[in-house]
C-alpha cells in the first residue's frame, strides 16, 4: 500500500486496517521531551523550600514511604501549589491556543473574550470594595467576573449568528471597559488593599492549597478533552469561514464550542492563580515555532504551559529568597525572551 500522496515533511502515516492517522513526528518528539522536563521540574519544585527534600525523598513519599513530617509538608503544602501551577499553566496555554486559532490572530489571547479583564474586575472589586481576604472569596469573585463578562460579550456579539471578527472587536471594547472600571477601583484603594490587589493581578501561586486545586482539576478533566474535540472544527476553520461552511461544518455550533471551552479554561485558571496573562499569548506561539505547522498545537501548548508556570514558580521562590515574586512576573521574564529568540532565529515562515 503506497502512501506517497500523503507524504508530508515531518509527518508519518500510521495505518491499522481501515484506520489511518497522520502523525506529526516533530510535534510528538517535542511534546514528550517537554513532558519529561515538566516532571523533572515538578519534582525539584516540590522538594524546594524551608525544609528541602531530595528527589529521592520525594520518590519515597510518592510511593507511600517517608516520615510523617515529610509526608505532611509534601502532600499538604507543596504538592497543591505545584499542581495548581501545572494545571493553571496548561489551561491558560490551551485557552490561548484556541483563541489564537479561532481569531486567526497571534495577538488574540483570552482577553478578547473578556475573561481575564472580567476576572480582574471581579477580584479587585472583592479585595478593594468588599474587603474580601479569604482564600475562597477572591477566586470565586474572579470566576464570577470571568464567566459573567464572557457570557455578556458572547451575547452582545450575537446577531443572527456569531461572526469571529465582530466577537473580537466587541471583546476588545468590553475588555477596555472592564479595565477602566478596574483602574477606577484601584484609584480608590487603600495602600494595603492596593498591594494585595497588585499581587493578585500579577498572577501568584503563593498559599495555594487543595481547595484551589480540586475545582481546577475537575474543570480540566472535562475541558481538556472538550478542547481536543473542538480543534477538529478549528482545523477546518483556518481555511476561512466560507470554506468551512462549504465543507459541511456547522459553523455556529463549532464557534460556540470553541468560545465556551476557551473561556471556561481561562476562567478556571485565572480564578485559582490570577491572570498570568503572558502564558496564554506566549506559550502557543512558542509551541507553534517548536513544532512547526500553521496553528498552535494543543497538546504541546498544554505541556509547555505547565512547564513554564511551574518552572517559573520555582525560580520566583529562588531569585529573591526568602521572599518571592508573583509567578506571573517571572513567566513574562522567562517566556518572552525565549519567544523573541525563536522569532529571531526563525528558520521557517509560520503564520498565526
Amino acid at each position, binding site marked *: 500500500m503506497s502512501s506517497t500522496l500523503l507524504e508530508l515533511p515531518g509527518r508519518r502515516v500510521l495505518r491499522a486496517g481501515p484506520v489511518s492517522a497522520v502523525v506529526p513526528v516533530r510535534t510528538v518528539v517535542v511534546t514528550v521531551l517537554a513532558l519529561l522536563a515538566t516532571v523533572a521540574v515538578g519534582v525539584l519544585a516540590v522538594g524546594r523550600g524551608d525544609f528541602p527534600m531530595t528527589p529521592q525523598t520525594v520518590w519515597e513519599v510518592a510511593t507511600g514511604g517517608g516520615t510523617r513530617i515529610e509526608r505532611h509538608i509534601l502532600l499538604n503544602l507543596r504538592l497543591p501549589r505545584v499542581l495548581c501551577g501545572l494545571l493553571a499553566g496548561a489551561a491558560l496555554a490551551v485557552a490561548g491556543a484556541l483563541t489564537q486559532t479561532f481569531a486567526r*490572530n*497571534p*495577538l*488574540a489571547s483570552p482577553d*478578547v473574550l473578556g475573561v481575564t479583564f472580567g476576572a480582574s474586575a471581579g477580584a479587585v472589586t472583592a479585595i478593594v470594595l468588599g474587603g474580601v481576604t479569604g482564600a475562597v472569596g477572591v477566586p470565586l469573585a474572579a470566576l464570577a467576573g470571568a464567566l459573567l463578562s464572557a457570557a455578556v460579550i458572547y451575547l*452582545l*456579539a450575537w*446577531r443572527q449568528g456569531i461572526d469571529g*471578527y*465582530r466577537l*473580537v*472587536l*466587541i471583546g*476588545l*471594547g*468590553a475588555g*477596555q*471597559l472592564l*479595565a*477602566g*472600571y478596574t*483602574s*477606577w477601583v*484601584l*484609584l480608590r484603594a487603600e*495602600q494595603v488593599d*492596593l*498591594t494585595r490587589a*497588585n*499581587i493578585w493581578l*500579577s498572577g501568584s501561586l503563593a498559599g495555594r492549597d487543595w481547595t484551589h486545586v480540586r475545582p481546577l482539576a475537575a474543570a480540566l478533566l472535562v475541558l481538556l478533552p472538550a478542547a481536543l474535540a473542538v480543534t477538529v472544527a478549528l482545523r477546518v476553520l483556518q481555511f476561512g469561514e466560507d470554506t468551512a461552511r462549504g465543507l459541511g461544518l456547522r459553523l455556529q455550533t463549532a464557534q460556540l464550542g470553541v468560545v465556551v471551552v476557551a473561556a471556561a479554561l481561562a476562567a478556571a485558571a485565572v480564578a485559582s492563580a490570577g491572570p498570568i*496573562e*503572558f502564558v496564554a*499569548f*506566549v506559550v502557543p*506561539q512558542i509551541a507553534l515555532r517548536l513544532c512547526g505547522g500553521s496553528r498552535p498545537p494543543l497538546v504541546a501548548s498544554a505541556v509547555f504551559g505547565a512547564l513554564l508556570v511551574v518552572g517559573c514558580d520555582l525560580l520566583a521562590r529562588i531569585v529573591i529568597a526568602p521572599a518571592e*515574586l*508573583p509567578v*506571573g*512576573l*517571572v513567566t*513574562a*521574564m522567562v517566556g*518572552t*525572551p525565549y*519567544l*523573541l529568540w525563536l*522569532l*529571531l532565529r*526563525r528558520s521557517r*515562515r509560520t*503564520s498565526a
Partner: protein
Amino acid sequence: MTVAGTLTRTGRGSRPAWLAVLVLLAVVAVLLSLGLGAQTVHPADVWQAIVDPDTSDATAVVRELRGPRTVLGVLCGLALGAAGALMQGHTRNPIADPGLLGVSAGASLGVVVAIAFLGIGTFHGYIWFGFAGALAASVLVFALGSAGSHGPTPVTLALAGMALSALLASFTSSILIGNPETMSVFRFWVVGSLAGRDMTTAWEVAPFILAGLVLAAVNSPALNALGLGEDVARALGQNIALARTAGVAAVVLLAGAATAAVGPLVFAGLIVPHLARVITGPDHRWLIPFSALLGVSLVLLADVTGRMVARPAELQTGIVLAVVGAPFFIWLVRRIRMVRL
C-alpha cells in the same frame, strides 16, 4: 438601521463632506472643553477670552485652566488617532493599538523608574523619562521585529511588540510590588488624564507630534500599497523596509509623545481607526486624517464628560474613555458592518 444606512449610502464621493463634518465636530469639542467644567462659561465669554482676553474670571478660567488641557487634548487626540490607523495598517491587525510597539510599556517603565529611584513626583517631571522609555522600547521592538530574513513583516512586528511589552510590563510590576509608595503615585499617571498639565507640556510635545503627523501623511500611499501584500507592493516599486521604518517612526513619535504627556490613553488609538474605516473605507490617505480628527473629538469629549459627571471633582480621561467609549463602540460594532483589514 439609520446610522448604518446613512454610512453605507455615503459612498466614497462624499468624503470632503464627511471631512467637514469631522472638523466641525472637533471644533465643537474644543469649545465644549473650553466652556464646560466646575464653572460653566458662556460661549460668548469663551469667544471673548480667545480673541480679546480681559481681566474677567471667565477669561482666567478659559486661558489659564482649560486652555492648556484643551490644547494638549487636541495634540494627543490627533496623535493617538493617526498612530492607531498607522499601527493597524502596518501590522494588518485589528487588535493592534499604538501601544503595541512597546510605547506604553516603555513609557510606563520610564515613569516608574523616575518615581521609584529618582523621587520625581510631578507629571511634568516624568515626561522625558516616559518619552525616553517609549523611544528605547520601540526601537528595540522594531529591531527585533525586523531582524529576520524577510525584514519587518506584519506578524513579526506584532509578535515582537506584544512580547517585549509583556516583558517590560513585568519589570514595571516588579518595581511596583516592591515599592507601594511608587504604586500610589503611578496609578494616577497610568489611567491617562489631561488634568494637571500646563502649557509647557503642550509646547514640549508639540514638535514631536507635528513631525509624526507629517511622516504619517507621507507614509500613507506606501501603506496602501503594502496593504495589497508585500509582493504586490514590491512589484509596484515600493521600498518595503523604508516604508515600514517610516511608519513605525511616525507611530513612535506620535504615540510616544502623547503617552508621555497624558499617560497611556490606549483606547482612543484602538477604536478610532475602526470608526474612521466605516466612514471612509481602507484608503490610508483618507483614513489617517479622519482618524486624527476623530481622535481629537473623542479625547476632548471624554475629558469634558469626566469634568461634568463628578463635579466639582473629576473623573480621569482614560476611565471615561473606556467606560463611555466602550459601550458606544460595542453598539456601533453591532449595528454596522465593520471594514475588515
